[in-house]
């Protein structure tokens, strides 16, 4: 993606309207998110912060199409995904969303290349094409010399880099990160943030949930959640 994001008129890539999510326990309802109205433009770098219980994880799950809202609508890339069935949602996740988890979540039995290929495997990419792309992405995150290593043979920072490459595999609309530096030391963490900065420069849309002020500092927009609502928004 070229950096002509500034030249083109920005289109909302994420549009949340009156989004609500509550969990039912027997007869009682526990509201996790209430009346969330958010608009994210393409190419933005967004951080989501808040104390525990504020609804960060719930919002992340909704953004990632892992869960469906109780009411309201969620438009991703111009399509209302709030009412789709499981199969369609799986497709959307595979094609339009790239996940980065706090604990990397690489598949232990597969090596670096195969891990990066997983999202492409589920979209039925031909073997040769997915391999080539995986090699490219591995190079982009600086792991060309570890293509056949297993996750257990990599450091935390290296594993997270594989995870980032994997998240980019299908050229998603948004990259969702859940505390990407949470399990890393400050040095590796800075590496990862550097890579994320690069992605932002390339015009990718990043949405990162974090506790870390350092991460928030790098974002364009910081959204603070409290008790399931947007408390405030800060622009850097």
């Amino acid at each position, binding site marked *: 993606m070229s950096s002509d994001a500034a030249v083109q008129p920005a289109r909302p890539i994420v549009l949340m309207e009156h989004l609500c999510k509550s969990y039912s326990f027997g007869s009682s309802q526990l509201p996790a998110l209430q009346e969330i109205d958010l608009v994210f433009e393409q190419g933005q770098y967004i951080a989501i912060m808040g104390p525990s219980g504020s609804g960060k994880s719930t919002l992340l799950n909704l953004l990632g199409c892992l869960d469906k809202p109780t009411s309201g609508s969620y438009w991703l890339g111009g399509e209302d995904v709030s009412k789709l069935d499981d199969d369609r949602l*799986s497709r959307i*996740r595979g094609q339009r969303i790239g*996940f980065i988890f706090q604990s990397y979540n690489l598949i232990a039995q597969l090596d670096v290349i195969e891990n990066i290929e997983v999202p492409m495997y589920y979209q039925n990419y031909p073997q040769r094409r997915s391999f080539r792309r995986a090699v490219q992405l591995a190079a982009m995150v600086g792991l060309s010399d570890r293509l056949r290593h297993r996750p257990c043979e990599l450091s935390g920072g290296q594993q997270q880099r594989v995870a980032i490459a994997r998240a980019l595999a299908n050229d998603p609309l948004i990259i969702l990160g859940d505390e990407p530096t949470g399990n890393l030391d400050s040095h590796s963490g800075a590496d990862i943030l550097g890579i994320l900065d690069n992605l932002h420069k390339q015009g990718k849309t990043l949405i990162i949930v974090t506790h870390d002020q350092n991460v928030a500092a790098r974002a364009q927009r910081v959204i603070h959640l409290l008790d399931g609502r947007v408390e405030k928004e800060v622009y850097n």
Partner: protein
Amino acid sequence: MNYELLQRTLKMGSRSLWNHRLRSTLTTLGIIFGVSSVIAMLAIGEGASREAQLQIAKLGSTNIIVKTVKPPENQIATGKQNSILDYGLTYDDATRFREVIPNVQVVVPVRRISQQAWYRNRKIGIEVIGTVPWYTEMAPVHVRQGHFLTDIDLRHQQGVCVIDENVVKNLFMFDDPLDQYIKIAGNYYRVIGIVSSFQGIKAGGAFELQPSPAVNTASSIGSVYIPLTAAKARFGEFTFQGGASGGRVEKVELQEITVKVASSDQVLMIRDIIEGIMSRFHKKKDYQIEVPLELLRQAAQTKRIFSIVLGSIAAISLLVGGIGIMNIMLASVSERTREIGVRRALGATRHDIIIQFLSETVLLTLMGGILGIILGSLIPYFVTLFSGMPTAITFISLILAFGISAAVGIAFGLYPAYRAAHMDPIESLRHE
């Protein structure tokens, strides 16, 4: 494209199984034992059944064999110690059969006598079989050299004989028997032909045939066929059955008459006719009618029951193997909860997850099936080698065993795969 997908799925599945080699092996054992026992047991059953059917078929499915039987003591009229016990089939019976039974093809009367045969200075125990030239039409004897008895021999009570290969081997050794003379009970017989040996029936359950009286198979090494008329002339019909407390003289004309009918459909009807003739002319129950066709049917029925029983036992062991697989797959799914969540987040549908786990199970059972087939084919081989029991591996049993193992795999793998696919991705990702 689909072929490639299948290939990658299988590669992924086998990699996963390889990573847990011990566990996979132990799981497959159930299937291996199940499949191999199906094949081995069915092979043993099939071998035994084929052997029995072969023996019975040699007697001829269009034959009815009427045999002389010594009547039970209470039917013998009490009389003086020295009275002659007259029983069994007679030449008249043979004639009656020939005249009364419609469409009868051949009636073969047989007289058996235990004797010693001499050649040069060697002697062996043999069974003399006095019969007619058309004996070869109903009995499984093949003339190897020379020829069988002829009508002329029969008419003229010629002192000729046809010997079987056991006699050749034990009495003549390396000499050429044809045109040589052997001496039986003081009379000389010229050898005119050599026939193949007929193996007696081995005992076995419902289809054991009774040996004819006056035949002591333990001491006769082979058979010597002479014309019935010669037997009648030279041996007469009287035999002395000796015992510690004195003996009695018995008169038996024929030991056996074999009736061959035109087709196996008529066998049962003709059997009834024979039964009618015999009961009319024989006051005592001194005969017995054997119908090889019925024995064949009994044998087939026995085999069917056998197969069902053996098959059920084997099926149960396959079931147990399948439950073992389900158990292991459930544990495997549980262990990989997180991985399943990750895959779902990366775009895997429920269908993808089911295929992933199902393919592992199917690989396990297919592998078990193949190894089971190999083992199941080896076992009957060794059984035959060490026990002499014939076995026959049927192609059907291989297909059956393999198909069932594949079905077991899919059936018992479906539930764990379904469980895996329907886990909530969010819960799974939170899992340890």
